[in-house]
């Protein structure tokens, strides 16, 4: 951690987005994480993506649970709304907020412990409901905040800092999400912003639940020899399979697709994701073959990364439940609370 705040001084030629803001306007409080933590890099990627999408800070909702990773929502978009839930309970807070106000942009940041250990149940149900949010797991294979115990994502055979070996099989959030019917599943690495930033942009614009599992080395408790989540090990064993470029909605589409090389996916608001396959055999639109492929590579000790599965046609929570189009706080009181006569009528229907 650093005691000296990042000064407000910036590069004079720092670009501005559609709102006239610079990237620096999307920063948050000073990080208190260990110097070199992967989580801080992900924070920087979120800052970059939020700036590039020109999200109005006051329209952003940042949610998290407990853990080093969950602390990071304080470190970006200080103008947004934030909620730190109790351990593993972020999805239910996201659920409630999203149900009440669908007009905001929801980003949840959690850890492998927060999501896959104590919060596993909530996580699964958020996926099933296809809640419209971006859910980032900052995956370091340990409980960083409580000093480095193995988490549920620790790989078989990986070694803890003091030397003990993990013998329990890991839960892989990507495969889990795919079996639960998730509509947007990605994996990335904190040390690869070229891949991560467009994924975050795409995830924020995706209608429905977008999961990005980001390998994020814990520099203090899990960056040693023998760890399968260190910087060095991750770099050796992670293979980009599909690169996603995000193309914002433009009045005239000027990008040229170089047919055959890229596959455009049109998102709900008209923006596009351009998928570029780096592994020819991989099909990010076929859930079954994609899952098989991921598993096969995992057996070889490799992590496939990129946008691993996408389906824009799935109905999201609001669609499934036919909720009103507008945020609840914008509805007139009479609509929200139509009175006892209407209630009685509704109850009568069940008698």
């Amino acid at each position: 951690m650093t005691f000296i705040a990042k000064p407000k001084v910036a590069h004079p030629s720092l670009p501005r987005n559609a709102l006239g803001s610079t990237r620096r306007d999307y920063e948050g409080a000073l990080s208190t994480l260990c110097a070199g933590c992967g989580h801080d890099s992900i924070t920087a990627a979120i800052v970059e993506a939020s700036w590039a999408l020109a999200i109005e800070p006051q329209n952003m909702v940042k949610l998290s649970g407990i853990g080093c990773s969950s602390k990071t929502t304080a470190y970006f978009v200080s103008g947004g709304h934030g909620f730190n839930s109790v351990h593993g309970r972020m999805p239910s807070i996201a659920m409630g907020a999203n149900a009440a106000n669908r007009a905001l942009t929801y980003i949840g940041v959690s850890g492998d412990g927060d999501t896959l250990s104590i919060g596993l149940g909530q996580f699964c149900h958020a996926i099933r409901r296809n809640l419209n949010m971006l859910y980032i797991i900052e995956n370091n294979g340990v409980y960083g905040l409580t000093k480095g115990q193995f988490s549920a994502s620790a790989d078989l055979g990986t070694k803890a800092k003091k030397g003990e070996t993990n013998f329990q099989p890991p839960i892989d959030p990507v495969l889990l999400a795919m079996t639960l019917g998730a509509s947007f599943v990605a994996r990335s690495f904190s040390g690869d912003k070229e891949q991560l930033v467009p994924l975050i942009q795409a995830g924020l614009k995706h209608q429905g639940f977008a999961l990005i599992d980001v390998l994020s080395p814990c520099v203090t408790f899990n960056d040693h020899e023998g760890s399968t989540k260190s910087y060095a090990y991750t770099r050796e064993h992670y293979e980009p399979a599909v690169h996603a470029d995000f193309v914002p909605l433009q009045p005239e589409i000027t990008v040229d697709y170089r047919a055959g090389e890229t596959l455009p996916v049109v998102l709900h608001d008209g923006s596009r994701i351009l998928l570029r396959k780096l592994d020819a055999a991989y099909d990010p639109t076929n859930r079954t073959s994609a899952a098989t492929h991921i598993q096969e590579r995992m057996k070889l000790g490799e992590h496939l990364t990129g946008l691993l599965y996408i389906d824009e046609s799935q109905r999201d929570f609001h669609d499934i439940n036919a909720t009103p189009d507008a945020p609840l706080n914008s509805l007139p009181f009479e609509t929200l609370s139509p009175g006892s006569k209407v209630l009685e009528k509704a109850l009568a229907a069940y008698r």
Partner: protein
Amino acid sequence: MSVAATQQYDDNPRRASILTLLMEPTDTSHPDYYHRVVDCQWACPAHTDVPEYIRLIAQGRFTDAYMVNRESNVFPGILGRVCDRPCEPACRRGRIEQKPVAICRLKRVAADHRDDVTKLLPKIPKLKNGKRIACIGAGCASLTVANDLMPLGYEVTIFEQYGEPGGLMRTNIPSFRLPQTVLSEEIGMITGMGVDLRLNSPIKSMRELLDKGGFDAVFVGSGAPKGKELKLPGREAAAANVHIGIDWLESVAFGHVEKIGKRVLIIGVGNTAMDCCRTSLRLGADSVKVMARKPRGFFKASVWELEDAEEESVAIIINRSPKAFVLASGKLTGMLFDQMEYDLDARGQITAERIVGEEFLPADDVILAIGQENAFPWVERNLGISFDKWDVPVIDKITFQSTRPEVFFGGDAAFGPKNIIWAVEHGHQAAISIHRYAQGEAVAERLAPTVNLQSRKMGMHEWSYSNDYTPVERRLMPHVSIKERFKKLNIEVELGFTAEQVEQEVQRCLNCDVQTVFVAKLCIECDACIDICPVDCLTITHNGTENELRPRLKAPAKNLAQPLYVSAGLPQTGRVMVKDEDLCVHCGLCAERCPTAAWDMQKSTLHWPLATAEAASLEARKPKIA
């Protein structure tokens, strides 16, 4: 991710050819590398250690700050007022928020608040080394030569034509900019070393001096004393009211001229013109116009001199080319000018010019301030001292030696008019040459500069320098009121910074000498430094050619005058760490954030050899007699 994979992300079609021409890792052991990062010190002809003296001022150590200055620039009190300050346009702070650190004004703070420095001045050996050196002219160049050679045991004689030492600093720089007391005190520190100063002693024949003087070497520091003429109709007839700027200023300085007409035209818009117009106002003129041939962007005068003149209501009239002096009954009544018009291209260069009219401006006096030249009527041309086809002496740019081995030139006499700080540096270099020459050593084989590095890390989050960026703007120099300052010729206009201003201004310095030093093999490519750098000067990327690399850095490196640092290949991916030195604010956050101490903040100290260092090194190489 493998290197191959990183490369797949880059769809730059030129990559194949780029990969074959990668940038070499930067050689930071070259003494120029870290020196150059300290923009002010690199720009200063004498390489004054600016950040060091600013830190000393911040600590209230004015005397120490003064001595750091004196070591390099010899005249801190003088230069703290009138230096041409090439350091300021170079200062990094000026690229971050427009206005550079007030480096020059802070130098004056050190000079104004120092204690007596007599005891700190170099010791002069009683026993002389038997070598006698003559300096011609008592300007800053000769004085510097004396300052450097006296401590080594030389007997230095300075011949000065006038009754007072100081050269143009005394005769041309007006006392409302540079008080005589300041000038005399700093010159006194040198003459007080036991220099044989011969005033009222013009050298009329170089031959005589060389043949009969009995000197081992001669330094010519006679300046560039000839003001340029403007040969136009009426010049001769109007002679009584047409003055050559530098001669006129000299007459004012010596009290020979005490007034001027009400309406004065100054021809030319350089620094001499600025002194002429402001001096005119103090000698009774009430309408002073500075006539410029070209538009504003082409003025030779420093911005601050223009500001000071305009503050005193001097009018600067552009696009007027002098045509004739106009007389009535044998007396000057004014001047005729062509009205000019220019076409400028996108870069602001003149592509065409034309005359669009004519204008008469009335005047009682005209002062010509259109340049100076060096002139050597007293140097015979058959002494083995070569002059080129423009009748300018042929001088070696590094050693300042002429084609006659025992004769050296420096200051304005060497390459034409420059400024005080250049004359000082010439003096330093000539002193080294004279020492080597007098000791029978090859003059060109001098010591090379070196740079030392020392970590500023004190503990977990502690650095032994003030690394917080302070967002204060440049402080403005307080001036004597317009009414008050004209009461006497020698009222110094600038009052000097107040204590509060000093306190704020020192914090604006970025400590560019506290360098970011990188060790590639320690880096784990966690990106922490990249993310924290407030000005985006760091990038980890695959290597490339410089042209290709510059635009694709985190913040495109557009300032080609500032170098890129490129590391050796990083252990995990073989990519390189690239730093654009341009806007680094030396906050140290990269080093603070780095988990492996791959970045460290280390203070660089430049050793720019002067005659004392040269002498010590020669001494060390002498065989010791047991």
